[in-house]
């Protein structure tokens, strides 16, 4: 059981590695985000989200996994860049689909330039990510780079399937969801591209395609699920400046988080009827009173505490799976970084 000193030490290590690998990825990103024509209506907009910063969790995890399995950072940096480009492409499209107003502390791309220009910029980011994956052939050779490409195709497919599940729930105004539904959705929508793909690609590159990938799916899912639940909690009680998105935005969007699913389960019939009516209202018509009421009911039914407990439980399970995946690898800073992420995903603010 980690004490406060261990938690602080883990946090320091994660910050240090995120800074280092984040900087490495940003340098490599410049090749793909260099100014070119049409600059004003495409490439300047394409470079906007990646230049807003962000923690660089995904590329750092990919680089750390590759190094923990024995590769050099140079072998994995193009995959890390591809991951960051694809991540930003998803963010652009997600912001349009979710009608979000704020991303990384600034107006979303579609709020600044309109939906048409933003969607096109998102498409360009996807293609730039594909370019980076194809460039892997220069350093990894055709066989390994094709394996990485296949992983990327699967990751992208899983992500859009997960997004479709979530959008479908909102479209259908689903209020009879179970926690298992939520976990299935985030397995696809969040975990694949946040943790599973970076870990698997890093392991593929580090082991030259020999590492078994299934245990990484299990570990990545548990880690990613703890991350996502905590992220959803931060939307309700976090610091808006540090969080970078609008607080309570998930309630405004009617996002089916674990807390909302819990509320639907615990609410009385009358409350559920009101909840259904509020969630059926288009986002612009949803009022501050609606959001306040949902949040107040969540507190009344301890939905945040419940979700927090689930996140901790899954992080505990992730810690167990970590030993199965990485136990046989020699000790390294990268291995310790991945272990420390289990604590960090719960502690970040």
């Amino acid at each position, binding site marked *: 059981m980690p004490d406060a000193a261990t938690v602080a030490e883990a946090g320091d290590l994660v910050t240090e590695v995120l800074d280092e690998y984040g900087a490495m990825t940003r340098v490599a990103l410049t090749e793909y985000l260099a100014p070119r024509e049409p600059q004003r209506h495409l490439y300047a907009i394409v470079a906007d989200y990646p230049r807003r910063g962000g923690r660089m969790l995904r590329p750092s995890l990919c680089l750390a996994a590759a190094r923990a399995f024995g590769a050099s950072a140079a072998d994995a940096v193009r995959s890390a860049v591809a991951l960051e480009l694809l991540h930003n492409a998803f963010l652009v499209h997600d912001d349009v689909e979710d009608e979000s107003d704020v991303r990384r502390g600034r107006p979303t791309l579609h709020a600044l330039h309109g939906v048409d220009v933003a969607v096109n910029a998102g498409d360009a980011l996807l293609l730039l990510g594909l370019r980076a994956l194809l460039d892997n052939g220069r350093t990894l050779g055709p066989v390994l780079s094709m394996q990485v490409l296949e992983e990327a195709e699967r990751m992208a497919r899983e992500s859009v399937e997960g997004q479709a599940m979530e959008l479908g729930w909102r479209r259908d105004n689903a209020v009879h969801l179970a926690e298992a539904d939520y*976990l299935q959705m985030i397995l696809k929508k969040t975990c694949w591209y946040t943790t599973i793909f970076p870990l698997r690609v890093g392991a593929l590159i580090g082991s030259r395609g020999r590492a078994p990938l299934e245990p990484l799916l299990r570990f990545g899912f548990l880690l990613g699920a703890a991350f996502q639940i905590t992220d959803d909690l931060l939307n309700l009680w976090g610091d808006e400046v540090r969080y970078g998105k609008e607080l309570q935005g998930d309630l405004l969007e009617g996002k089916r988080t674990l807390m909302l699913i819990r509320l639907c389960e615990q609410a009385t019939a009358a409350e559920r009827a009101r909840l259904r009516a509020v969630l059926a209202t288009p986002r612009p018509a949803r009022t501050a009173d609606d959001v306040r009421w949902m949040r107040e009911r969540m507190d009344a039914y*301890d939905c945040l*505490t419940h979700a927090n407990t689930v996140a901790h439980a899954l992080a505990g399970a992730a810690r167990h799976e970590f030993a199965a995946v990485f136990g046989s690898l020699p000790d390294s800073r990268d291995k310790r970084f991945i272990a420390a992420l289990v604590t960090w995903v719960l502690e970040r603010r």
Partner: protein
Amino acid sequence: MNRPRRPTLPRTTPVRTWTSLFGAPKPPATDGTPLPDDDDPAALGTVIQRSVELAYRVVDDYLQQGQRAAERIAGRSYGPDAWVTDAQDVSARFARYASDAMGLWLDALDGVRDGRTPAPAPAPSGAATNGAVPPSPPTSGSWLVIEVQATQSAAVTLDLRAGVAAGTVVVHALRDVEVEKPPLRDVVVEPAVGDGPVRVCVRVPAGQPAGTYHGLIVDDETNRPVGSVSVRLLDA
């Protein structure tokens, strides 16, 4: 000689609190009122165990789906086994569509009864495999226990309207889309009593053919449909 002694601690048992395992604070309540105490070890332990079991079940199901897909792709795509499996999948999908359509119909009935526009169909509300207890209830505020007696792998899906009173429902025989297969008749659904669970008891006779069996749950007094139950059986 004065030997150093450990100070006497106020606690008499180990302090194990999952919510503070990694030092995470409790979330603040928005209205400033203190949150209810969540340190009840039994309740907390149940949540933790259930969450972890549920997560493993989700990821294991997902891995099994991938494994089956890979097996079909890896050289067995055109063998007779694959055709049988595919046929079962098609049959299961057909039954699922029927289940979804029934959900829509039930919602429409609710809407007509309440004098409002029919709402979209909810997602499937409860499912379990081989007698496992799903984490979340089909009816709000209650929980679900599924008991399966079968010699082969079985997955049970239940869709039961909220607020159905105990002792008032009957389950029609569950039939496969292939009518020559014998129906499953020994299926009982007991709605929740008070805070108790919804109980589903399924007994599958030995030798029952694989397939997806689907049946209506109706209110015994009004004969109005209040849900549906599906049992998917794999080959023994």
